Every structure is written in structure tokens, then in C-alpha cells.
């Protein structure tokens, strides 16, 4: 956060930061509007549209039927006509009922129109588990979106980024999948990582999409996280510092575009790489990050490693789910083991 922006300091949750960004965009641009299930009176199941219904009314803050193909497709169609819809898919787990309009229509319309037709739509959607919501309400599915060209795919790890990235997403002329992590959202009924609730300026500002952030500088190892796992990495890094290990934490913030440069620069500096994801391991972004480093031919002091959610659905029972999730302890243990491992490549 730049000092100049800190006019007044307020700690906000990601939910509030998202609502505020949308609110400010709606005030300054009549083309911006919101739709989705329960975004009206309820203010969004995850608080993303708190206060907007009262302020802007049902025309610009539209509750929809449970028809994701219908209303997300409609959002994309309205965007083609120059509106700037912010549309909510309540849980990312529901993508399967509406993916076609997202990835075959919204994502490809620029290409199919030779760049002459924009789809300035933001699709915001919640991801992540950890609170025992079962296997159809706890998934991450990040790379399911990031693998498909034509979509920007981002997720903030804190409220400052959330506001700035939402503003940037609304201003972007391309479809943006704006993921927010339930463990960071700041809904009282969900519990929230402390580090996600940070100072947020009242002014309008953008955090550019597609740029990773060095959340903590370090010299011994690069730990890459995304969303909630950034906090696991930061928590571990604090602990590790006490043991004399200096971990650099990279918050990807965006999977598409992927800021390979920032990751590579960090790994070049530290010579060690750990990637931490709460999405399923195989074909997840950790593989992409490690492969990018491998391709670049960066000499590592020990083999890269990843911690990710195993290739199993998310179980309901709390002990099982917690066992499968990444956490700071696992990050710390992996870093320690990497620091102790011999140079083998």
C-alpha cells in the first residue's frame, strides 16, 4: 500500500472491500450493475453486495432465478452491449452448470470478434473449504478456470488487494473471474484469517491484475501461495524467522495472466521453491509454477516441492478435512525439510 493512499486508515474485511469497490464503481459509472442469487436484500451470501440494494435498488442490484447459465450468459450479453456487470456465482463449485457461457462465450468473444467486441464482465465467486461444508461447497478449482484462455483469473489474499483488484476488474474490458476465499472473506459466521483484514483506503484505487506480490521478503527459500495459502506461508515464515530461516512469500494474486517473472526472480534469488495450494494437487497451479522454474533452467539448491490438496473430493468430517488441507505447520515442516535436504539437482 502506498503511503499517499492512506488518507484514512480503516481495517476492512474482504467482503466489505469488495462491496465498497463495487459501490464506488456503481456511483461513478451507470453501466456497472450487479446480479446473482441473493445479491439483493440479502447483500450476497458472502457479503459481497452489502448495502448496494438499499442504495441502488432492484434494477441495478438484481436477484436472479437459480439459473446460472441464464443469468451469467445474460451478464455476458449485457457486457457485450457495453454494460459492466458484476455477476456472482455463489460457489465456484457450481461452475459445472454454467461453464459454457463463461469459457466458450465470454472468454472467446474477443477472439471471435477479432478484438472488436469486449466483454467487460466480472464474475465473482467464492472458493475454498475448511468449515465442513462438504464436497460440493468447499472446492477451489482455480486451474479449472485458469487453463482456459480468454479469462483473467484472480484472487486477493487481503482486503486492500480485494478492493483494488475489484476496481481493476470492473475497469477491465475483459472477463475477469474474481475468486474470493471463504476463509478470508470476513463473514462472522465463517471465521477469517486475521491477515486478510487490513487497512483499506476510502479512495478509489486499482491493484493491477496479473501482478504477483512479494508479501514478505526473504533470502533462503521462495514460498508461493495464492489466496488462503499466502497466510499459511506468512504464518510459517514468521515462525521460521525465529529459527533463522528467511522465507520469501510470493502471493500470486493472479493465475491468468501468471506473473512468472516475479516467481522466477524470487527463486533465482533464494534457490529454493515451495508452492502451496489448497486446490487439488494434480494439474493444479503448483505444477505450473514448478515447471516454469524448471524450464527456465534455474539452478536450485534442492528439488522444488509442493503442498496441495490431495486428489480426493473434500470430505465433510472435520478431522478428515483438516487433515487434507494445507496449513502453516505443513508449510513450516516442508521448508525445514527442504533447508536440510542435500543439493540433488
Amino acid at each position, binding site marked *: 500500500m502506498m503511503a499517499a493512499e492512506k488518507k484514512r486508515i480503516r481495517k476492512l474485511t474482504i467482503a466489505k472491500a469488495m462491496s465498497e469497490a463495487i459501490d464506488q464503481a456503481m456511483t461513478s459509472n451507470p453501466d456497472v450493475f450487479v446480479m446473482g442469487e441473493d445479491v439483493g436484500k440479502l447483500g450476497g451470501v458472502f457479503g459481497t453486495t452489502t448495502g448496494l440494494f438499499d442504495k441502488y435498488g432492484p434494477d441495478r442490484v438484481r436477484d436472479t432465478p437459480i439459473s446460472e447459465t441464464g443469468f451469467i450468459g445474460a451478464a455476458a450479453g449485457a457486457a457485450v452491449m457495453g454494460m459492466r456487470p458484476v455477476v456472482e456465482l455463489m460457489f465456484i463449485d457450481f461452475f459445472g452448470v454454467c461453464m459454457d457461457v463463461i469459457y466458450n462465450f465470454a472468454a472467446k468473444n474477443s477472439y471471435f470478434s477479432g478484438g472488436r467486441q469486449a466483454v467487460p464482465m466480472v464474475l465473482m465467486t467464492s472458493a475454498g473449504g475448511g468449515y465442513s461444508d462438504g464436497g460440493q461447497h468447499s472446492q477451489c478449482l482455480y486451474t479449472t478456470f485458469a487453463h482456459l484462455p480468454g479469462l483473467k483469473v484472480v484472487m486477493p489474499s487481503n482486503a486492500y488487494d480485494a478492493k483494488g483488484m475489484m476496481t481493476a476488474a470492473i475497469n477491465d474490458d475483459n472477463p475477469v473471474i474474481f475468486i474470493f476465499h471463504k476463509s478470508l472473506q470476513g463473514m462472522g459466521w465463517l471465521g477469517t484469517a486475521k491477515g486478510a483484514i487490513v487497512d483499506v483506503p476510502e479512495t478509489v484505487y486499482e491493484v493491477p491484475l496479473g501482478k504477483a506480490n512479494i508479501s514478505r521478503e526473504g533470502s533462503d527459500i521462495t514460498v508461493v501461495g495464492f489466496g488462503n495459502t499466502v497466510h499459511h506461508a506468512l504464518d510459517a515464515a514468521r515462525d521460521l524467522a525465529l529459527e533463522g530461516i528467511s522465507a520469501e512469500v510470493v502471493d500470486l494474486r493472479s493465475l491468468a495472466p501468471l506473473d512468472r517473472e516475479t516467481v522466477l526472480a524470487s527463486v533465482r534469488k533464494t534457490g529454493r521453491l515451495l508452492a502451496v495450494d489448497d486446490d487439488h494437487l494434480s494439474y493444479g497451479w503448483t505444477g505450473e509454477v514448478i515447471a516454469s522454474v524448471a524450464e527456465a533452467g534455474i539452478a536450485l539448491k534442492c528439488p522444488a516441492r509442493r503442498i496441495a490438496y490431495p486428489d480426493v473430493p473434500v470430505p465433510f468430517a*472435520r478431522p*478428515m478435512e483438516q487433515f487434507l488441507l494445507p496449513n502453516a505447520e505443513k508449510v513450516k515442516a516442508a521448508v525445514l525439510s527442504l533447508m536440510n535436504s542435500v543439493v540433488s539437482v
Partner: protein
Amino acid sequence: MSRKPDIQTMLWMYKHMVLSRRYEEALAEAYLEGKQPLFNMANGPLPGEMHLSNGQEPCAVGVCAHLLDHDVVTATHRPHHIAIAKGVNLRAMTAEIFGKQTGLAGGRGGHMHLIDPAVNFACTGIVGEGLAPAAGAALARKMRGEDGIAVAFIGEGAANQGAFHETLNLAAVWNLPFVCVIEDNSYGISVPKGAATSVLHNDVRAASYGIRGYHVEGNDPLRIYEVAGEAIERARAGKGPSLIEIETYRLAGHFMGDAESYRPAGEKDALFARDPIPKFRQELVDAGAASSDDLLWIEEDAKSCVAELIDFAKAEAYAPVQEALEKVFV
């Protein structure tokens, strides 16, 4: 062609309505453990979302009274009343809801994922997801010449999902032994039916598939029994699918923790005044189907049954965490 239930059936219906109600009251109590004063969904012996069906019991019993074990039922995120009426193993179901090893899925599923192959019951958490698999189950029964039909329960909100349309058309084209039952409780979470559905009653949508449509008012178990009986008889007789919309209401929020501020003032009170359980009880007494004492006996029985179930489930062990890695494939 259909008829009123006999006394035995009526008592079965009452019993399962009461059992469901007591069951959910006990779940609600357990759910709040560890969540007060601060409500955090992740805490307590029953973490995660909890969708109660209080008020909707008539739909479950009125339909399931006609079903046998080999009949297939798919339900939704709001499954308890239906599971109970379908005869799901209640110990295994309760253990599952508490995430225990002896649960239906060893704790992998939870309350939105209750699957009991013995009585062909399943539910899922995605709105509309159960429809097509139910039609497929009906297809399987038909192709194999086996007895058994399939019933998909959905909410009125789900009737606006594409899966609804595709499944009803498919079931009609293939003349499947399939019934779609819509529990219209007026809301999809906070969104009232009128803001989401372009017709007043979903039974008119039967016309889109050339099938029978039925509408049942009043959340009345006996009326539901009659209408469902007709639809199910038709399905069994090879006369094809039907669509039933039942006017019902939920006495609770969408899920536990829902502040229900989207409800017009006074709505809840009016609903409680129409609670179908005391109403049905009175009807039974008035009709001479049972004495107040008989019914009391049923009610006491339900209470002790539920207490036993909750005690059992709470006492059961969690599976070793490594078992989370198993059963991805059979």
C-alpha cells in the same frame, strides 16, 4: 383413480412427520453447540451448513407413503424429512451427519450427501443435480424390466435450472417411470418465488413435456398423498412421468444462521400458526383415526428414538483421518 390413505397409512405419515420434526429439532440443538455466543459455522459437533425442513414434512410423507425400497428417490440440500420418510437407516444417517466412521459414507458426505443404497435414497448439494440421475435410475428399471420408479424431489427454485427442463423432456420422450416433486416453500434462500419464476405454479410447466401436472395447495398431507398416489400409479403402469408442485413452507431459515430479514413482517408467525403437524394431528383425532393417547405415544416414541440416535451418533468415533484418502474410486 387414487384414494385416501387408510388409517394405518395415516398413522405412518403422522409418525414420520413427527419423527422428522423431532429429529431436526435435535439436530438444531446439537448444531448450536459450540456456536454460541459467536456463530461460526466451522465450530461444534455439527459444523458446516445445516438446512432444516421443518414445515415441509407433509411433502415427504405424502409421497413416500407410496414408495417401496426399490423405488429410487433423489433429494436436495434439504433432505432429512424425505430421507426419514424413505426409510433411510437412521443410525447410519445420523452418524453421517455428525461425520462419524459408522455414517453412511464414513463421514465423507455430511448432511447434504446422504446416500443409502439399501433404500435407493440419495441427495446432493447442487440445485437440480438429482433430477437427471433419477430419470436415469428410472431408465435402468425400465430397461431391465425391474419394478420400481424414481422420484426426484426439488425446490421451487430448482425448477428454473436447465436440468429441470432437460430431464423432464427426456423422461417424457422415453416415457420413463419418473415423478418430479417440487416442494414450493416460496423461497430460494432469500429470493421469493415471484422474483424468480415466471409462472405462479410450476405444474403448468408439465405442458412443455406433454405430461401430467398436478398442483397441491395447503401443505396438506392427505391431499399430497392422493395426488402423489395418482402420479406414482401412472408411473408404475407405464403411463409416463408426472410433475407435482406442492405448496409448502419452511418454518426455519434457509440454513441455520439465516437471519431471515428478507421475510415480510409477520410471515413467520402466520406460518407457525399453520404448522402442519398440530393441524394433521387434529384431523386424525377428528376423523377418529387415532386417539390423543395413541398420538402421544407416537410422539413420545419419536422423541426417544431421536434422543437415542443423537446419543449414538455423538458417541461414535471419527474415522482415522487417513481414510479421507480412500473411496475416491470403488
